[in-house]
Each structure stands twice: as structure tokens, then as C-alpha cells.
């Protein structure tokens, strides 16, 4: 495991430093925009920090926001390591939440000790199924996953709208002329336990646990080793006798499953009911996309995703308070989000330059693949 040791050598601080500097530059550009909008940038950013970290509620909100990013981000790490681009996180979150909702509403008589794990498992399976479709289409029919995941995102939303508009609609809403496309509130005993008297729920702990498990899977099991081998060099893996298709399907299925679990946690921990506004973002808040960014922030390593998702959750939560503290338009938040992503992703070259071979190339040299696959 000597390679593992070298890989995360934090003696080379660039790895962390560079994203922070880049993020700072993005905020600087954001400051110019705030100034152009006629607000005071310093006041705005102080408000932003307070909004993200200034009170127990604010910190809880930041962590709650980090939840889905953590799940999706860890999933993206797995997909990425397996050489699959999963931009279907939005759809997988939605399907996961739908599966959870179905279980909660149909089996609501069960005690919470059984129902909560069952409902979470349903989210995991639902998201995995949705991701697995893309994996299957890629392995079996060579349908590129970029195309299929984009299409599957749209299909997932339509499916949610369809179900919330009929089969799953809140029975009391069915009787009203204004039909609200949402389910009834879940029974109280299906709420994920709160950690402290804020919105912070136990789902975030589950996320951290999942990240650790994903790390163990990828770096300490044969399956994980093969996933990484396939992602690193498809051709060599094939020669080494690894069933490339199977491991690609597995990678994107796991990735989807984690996104689905994120959806399950969101619906059981935060919203306690599923609703739709005809788009995915109403429920996901773009977590399917931002999760990809978080994965990169975390150097595509499950453990790195933990702090990365917290940071990003805090950033988004803080930025949202700008509307309330200095009254800049809501669109600024999206703009700032984009700027941070652009700056950080563009700065990676400097992060890599010093920490080369430690941060990015995770995989063993090709010649090592052959003996490994014989196990």
C-alpha cells in the first residue's frame, strides 16, 4: 500500500491552497459584480460568512445543504474512477426520492426502526437502477452515457410529475380544486433523527460513513481495484481479462445509487414530503451538477469529498443570504457559483503541477494490472 501513502501526501499544500486561492479570486470577481449592482461587497461578504457559519442554525443549514452534495460527490468519484461520466445525478436523486416516497407511503404502518432503513435502501436501489440503465446502455449498446444520462434526467422529472399528479398526490389535495403536485407529509416517525435542535439531521452522518465505505471499496477491495483499472486504461484492463462492461455498469450504478440515497436523505431528513415544480432543481437544488464540482474539489477522492461538500454547502448557503442582507438579485448566487467552479477547475493545473502523481494518477502502472487480475 505504499502507493496509497504517497498519494495523499499533504506535505504538498498546493493541493488545498490552490483551490482556496482560486475560490478567493472568484469571490473577488463576484465583489466587482456586487459593487456594480450598487451594494457594498465587504458588507455582502461579511453577511455571507455569517449566513453560512454565523449561528448554529446557519451552520446546520450549511451542513444540510452539504448533504446531497456529499452523496452525489462520493458517487461521482466512483463513476469517475471507473471511467464513466455521470451527469445524471439530477435524475438519480429524483428517482431515489421517488422510490423512498413509495416505500414510506405504502408501508407507513411499520415501526421506524424497520421503515427508515427500508426507505433509505429504496432510495439507494432506485438511484442505482436509474444509473444502471445508463451503464447497461453503454456496455450493451454503446450508447454514450453523456447522452443517456441527460435524457434520463428529463425522463425522471416527467415521471415524478406524473406520479405526484396522480397516484402519489396528497389525498387532501385531491379534494381541493387547487391540486398541489405533492405527497402528504410523511408520518413523523419516518423523520430522520435531528442531531441538535436545528434542521441538522442524521443523514449527514450517514453521508460521512458512506464516504469512508466508498474509500474502502475503491482502495481496499478487488472490486474497487478493478473499477479503477477499467477507468485508468480500458484496453489494458481488457487484455488483463477484466470484464470492462461489467465494471463500468457497476461504477455508474453505484454512483447513481449514492445519488439516489442522497435524494432519500433529502426527502426524509429535510422536506418530509415530495413535491414538484416541473423541474428537477426544485427538489435537488442542482446537487446533481454541483456534486460533480464537489467531487473535483475533493480531488475525486471519497474522503476529500467530505470537507469539499461542507465548504460548498457553506458557500451556497452563505450566497443565498446575500439576497436578504444586501438585497442583490437571486441570480447573483448562480453567477457566483459558476465563477467559483470555473476558477477552481481552471486552477487545478497549478495544484497538479506540484502534487503531480500524488493527486491525479491514482492507478498503478499498466504492467501491474496483469498480475492483479489473475487473483
Amino acid at each position: 500500500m505504499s502507493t496509497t501513502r504517497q498519494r495523499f501526501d499533504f506535505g504538498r499544500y498546493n493541493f488545498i491552497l490552490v483551490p482556496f486561492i482560486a475560490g478567493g479570486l472568484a469571490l473577488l470577481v463576484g465583489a466587482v459584480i456586487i459593487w456594480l449592482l450598487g451594494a457594498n461587497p465587504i458588507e455582502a461578504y461579511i453577511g455571507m460568512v455569517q449566513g453560512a457559519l454565523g449561528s448554529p442554525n446557519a451552520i446546520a443549514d450549511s451542513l444540510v445543504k452539504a448533504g446531497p452534495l456529499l452523496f452525489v460527490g462520493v458517487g461521482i468519484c466512483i463513476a469517475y474512477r471507473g471511467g464513466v461520466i455521470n451527469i445524471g445525478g439530477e435524475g438519480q436523486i429524483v428517482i431515489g426520492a421517488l422510490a423512498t416516497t413509495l416505500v414510506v407511503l405504502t408501508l407507513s404502518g411499520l415501526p421506524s426502526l424497520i421503515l427508515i432503513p427500508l426507505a433509505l435502501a429504496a432510495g439507494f436501489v432506485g438511484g442505482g437502477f436509474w444509473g444502471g440503465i445508463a451503464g447497461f446502455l453503454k456496455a450493451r449498446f454503446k450508447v454514450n452515457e453523456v447522452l443517456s444520462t441527460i435524457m434520463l434526467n428529463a425522463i425522471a422529472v416527467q415521471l415524478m410529475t406524473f406520479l405526484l399528479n396522480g397516484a402519489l398526490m396528497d389525498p387532501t389535495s385531491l379534494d381541493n380544486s387547487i391540486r398541489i403536485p405533492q405527497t402528504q407529509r410523511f408520518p413523523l416517525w419516518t423523520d430522520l433523527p435531528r442531531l441538535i435542535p436545528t434542521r441538522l439531521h442524521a443523514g449527514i452522518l450517514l453521508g460521512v460513513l458512506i464516504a469512508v465505505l466508498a474509500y474502502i471499496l475503491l482502495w481496499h477491495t478487488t472490486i474497487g481495484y478493478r473499477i479503477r483499472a477499467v477507468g485508468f486504461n480500458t484496453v489494458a484492463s481488457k487484455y488483463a481479462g477484466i470484464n470492462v462492461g461489467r465494471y463500468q455498469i457497476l461504477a455508474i450504478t453505484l454512483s447513481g445509487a449514492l445519488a439516489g440515497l442522497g435524494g432519500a436523505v433529502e426527502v426524509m431528513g429535510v422536506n418530509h414530503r415530495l413535491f414538484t415544480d416541473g423541474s428537477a432543481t426544485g427538489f435537488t437544488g442542482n446537487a446533481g451538477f454541483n456534486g460533480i464540482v464537489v467531487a473535483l474539489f475533493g480531488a475525486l477522492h471519497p474522503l476529500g469529498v467530505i470537507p469539499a461538500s461542507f465548504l460548498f454547502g457553506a458557500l451556497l448557503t452563505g450566497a443565498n443570504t446575500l439576497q436578504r442582507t444586501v438585497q442583490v438579485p437571486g441570480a447573483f448566487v448562480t453567477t457566483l457559483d459558476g465563477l467559483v467552479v470555473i476558477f477552481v477547475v481552471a486552477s487545478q493545473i497549478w495544484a497538479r503541477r506540484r502534487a503531480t502523481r500524488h493527486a491525479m494518477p491514482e492507478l498503478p502502472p499498466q504492467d501491474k494490472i496483469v498480475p492483479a487480475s489473475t487473483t
Partner: protein
Amino acid sequence: MKTRYILFTLALIALLALAACAAPTAAPQPTAAPAQPTAAPAQPTAAPPPAAKVFRVAVVMPSAANDLAFSQSMIDALTKIQAEMGKDKFEFVYSENMFNVTDAATAIRDYATKGYDLVLGHGSQYGASIQDIAPDFPNTAFAWGTAVDTFKEKGVNNVFAYTVASDQGGYVEGVMGVKLSKSKILGALGPIPAGDGQLTIKGFEAGALATDPNAKVQTTFTNSFSDVALMSQAAQTQIASGADVLTGTSQSVVGAVSVAKDKGVLWFGNQSDQASLAPDIVVASQVYDWTVALKWMMEKINGGTRGGEVFIATFANKGLVMVYNPAFKLPDDVKALAEKTIAGLADGSIQTGIK
């Protein structure tokens, strides 16, 4: 080295926790002390403390404040009340683009913490969040719409619900539409078959058929509140299949209005006054005038009631108004019929039959 990695994570969490401990003075603990929101400090940006009591409203809404549809209808109402009462008596702030409900819940709680008199969740997706947050702030009034559930039977006493009988407006539009139509085919466009949009469309159909049983109303849903291109094609499709009068809801209808303008087909607006988009073809708009609902709530709040009641905007209480486009030459007989229908709906002698 992975241990360092974990250490780093722990350090970060510790830092967050530290910040949490250092900060509590900044924000009230909602669950601990039930009484203080009324004593909350004035808004940081506000001018010197005014002499009279200021009524302060905060709104959280899903789309942009300038969407010329649902969100704008609320902003227009707040602006109007502020103009009537004066800035020293009435203040409002808003958070727009809160399409993500988790973010919206954060904003709602934050506004409540800051001591606003009334916190509005202007979107039916915010109900569950308000139900969770309201009990923590018993001295703050909350409201959400469009909805009819105040959670009173669940023990929550400080939530108002407001909704709109948009089937009434749709009904009148249907009556006028069928009179103005030559083909007697009318088209109705919506985002998803739910909410006030669906109610408008049902009313539109009922009004048209009550006036002319042989008329035909075609309905199309695009399944998106924002897809302007698809909405414009839906309008094209309606026109190609014979419709010469159209109506529609959601912020994406601006695309449909533009098609109607090109093809010289009539349009009935909803939610906000849409005449400015195409003065030649917009006949009238059903406008949600939330000033009535807001004033009703303010009166209740000043009288000590913070929730538990539902406001339904109708023609009768003027929460719903038909705004005729002055630039459009509406034949007198049609206008008279529309006015008669409005009066009938207001006094109950006409029913839309939508339930």
C-alpha cells in the same frame, strides 16, 4: 497520508463547531426562548427608527420577481401597499429564485429570526417547510399560497393560507373567448396539470362551453414552467389545429404570447397583466391582486390573530380582478357579458362548477 486527511476533516468540523459555539449570541435560539422575535432588531439597512410601528413583510418566492406571472403578482401587490401606506409604515423584502425548497426554508427561518411581522412563502411547494418552522416562532405570522391548509388541526396556529379561485377568472375569459372566436376552437396552455394554472384552464373550458356548447377547448401542457420554446410551439400547434383564441399560465407563456402576436390570434393573460407584451392581441388579463389578501392578513395580525384562516381571492372580494387591455377594442356586448358574468360569479348566481 490518509490519517492526515482525516485529521484535516476533523479539524474542519472542529472549526465549524467552534464557530457555532462562538456565535450563539448573534442569533436567537428558537426552540429555547419562545418570546423574543417581536423584539428583534431593525433591519440593518433600515433608516433611523420610525416613530410609528412599521409593518414588515418578507416574501420568499420561486421564480424571478420580474417574471410577469406568479411571483410578480405578489411583488406588484407589495409595492402597491407600500405606495399607499408609505415607506415608514410598510416595509417589505424578498428572496427570489428560491426554486429549491431547502434554500427557501433557510430563508423563511432567517426572516422569522429577524422578526418580520409576516413571512410569506409564495409557492405551494413551501408548505411543509412552513409547517416545520412556524411552531418555533409563535409570535410571527406566516402565510403560504396557493394553498388551503393552515395546519391548524396539527396544532399550528400562526399560519395563514391563501389561494385564488382562478377558475372564476378562467371562466370569464372562456366566456369572452368563445364570443370573440370565429373558429369556436379555443386553446389553453399550461405547465403541468396542477395548481392554479390547471384551475384556470378548467374554468376557461367551463366558461367557453357554458356560453357555446358546440365550442371546443384544446389543452396542452408542456411539463415545464420555464421552457419558453416548447410553450411557443404549443401555441403554434394550437393555432395550426384551428384555435384562434388562446390563454395560458406560467412564466413560460411569454413565448406563446409572442406567437399569438405574430399570427394575429387573441390572448387572455393570467396572474399578472400581460397586455404590455402584445397590446394588439391581449384582450384582458386575470390579475391576482394580492393586496386584498395582504390587507386582510395585516388586519388579522394587528388584531392579534396570526393564522389558522384561509383567504380565497375571488371576484367577490376583489382579490381577483379582470384587467381589460385599453388598447384592445373589445366589442361592447362582449364586455357587457363579461361584466355580467363577473357580477354573477361574485354574487354566486353563476358557478364555475369546478371542484
